[in-house]
């Protein structure tokens, strides 16, 4: 059982937060998405979305590109190669955890 605890402890805390996990999952499924689409996909408010994106950008997991389109501010977000690797590892860890917990039998 202690192995399961250590597996849980090893989960990436930055990614395991539900909003950031949703964001990274969305970004891993597409080339890029703009700010509004990410808001729609995750249901986050613009303030919360900005905060979570900043944290992910600081960690090098996403790339944020700000520009103007038709005189309107446009923020494009895409997952970095490192981000893709990290989210795939995270999913694998969660899958292993699920499998281990299902296979566990009392001694």
């Amino acid at each position, binding site marked *: 059982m202690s192995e399961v605890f250590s597996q849980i402890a090893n989960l990436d805390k930055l990614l395991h937060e539900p909003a950031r996990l949703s964001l990274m999952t969305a970004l891993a499924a597409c*080339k890029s998405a703009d700010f509004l*689409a990410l*808001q729609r996909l995750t249901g986050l408010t613009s303030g919360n979305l900005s905060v979570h994106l900043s944290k992910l950008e600081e960690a090098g997991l996403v790339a944020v590109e700000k520009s103007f389109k038709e005189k309107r501010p446009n923020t494009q977000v895409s997952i970095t190669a490192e981000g893709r690797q990290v989210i795939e590892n995270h999913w694998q860890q969660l899958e292993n955890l699920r499998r281990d917990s299902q296979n566990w039998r009392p001694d």
Partner: protein
Amino acid sequence: MNKIKQVHFFAQNYPQLQGLRMLPPALLLLLLTIWANQQHGPATDLSLPLLLSAGCLLVYIGIDQYYNRRYGKVKRIITRPEWLITAAGAVLALAAFILDTTDTFMISLLGLVFAGAFAATGFWYWRPARLLFALNIAIAILIGVLSLLPLVGIQDWWQILGLKHSLLAFTFLYGVFGLLAGVIAHMYFIRSLPAAEAK
């Protein structure tokens, strides 16, 4: 976990789920079919089809703006198999169209290609979304069965719709079902997106 799977599915298929985008091409096909059905012999005046095409293009631009401003934009990852299947489908549709004009076969090859297109769309994109998957498969089966009806002796059923040829019947049906699938996909899209957080 289901929420995360839903986010993944929506991000992966965001533009396809915006079903109103299907409306202008489906409507154009439908209108062109009605126009072609009223022609006697080779058409000489193509101004109406050109006008309809331009109108549908404008409607498409309007729908594109609506989605981009209201729902944002997601750039999809288009895989090589998806390109290949789309290209193969287009070639098959063209070949079926040409063969159907010669009336060589009893069955409608174009109808079978259209049925295949709806089935492929269902399996390729919509398996996680039961409603859209079921709708596409039901349309595929219906069009497939109609394509094969002459084999069981039911001929010229398209005359019930007031259409002159099987080709027109299947472009008509593709247009009608395209409109239906588009509206249902749009309703699914707007109802299934997560509710915004309370501020």
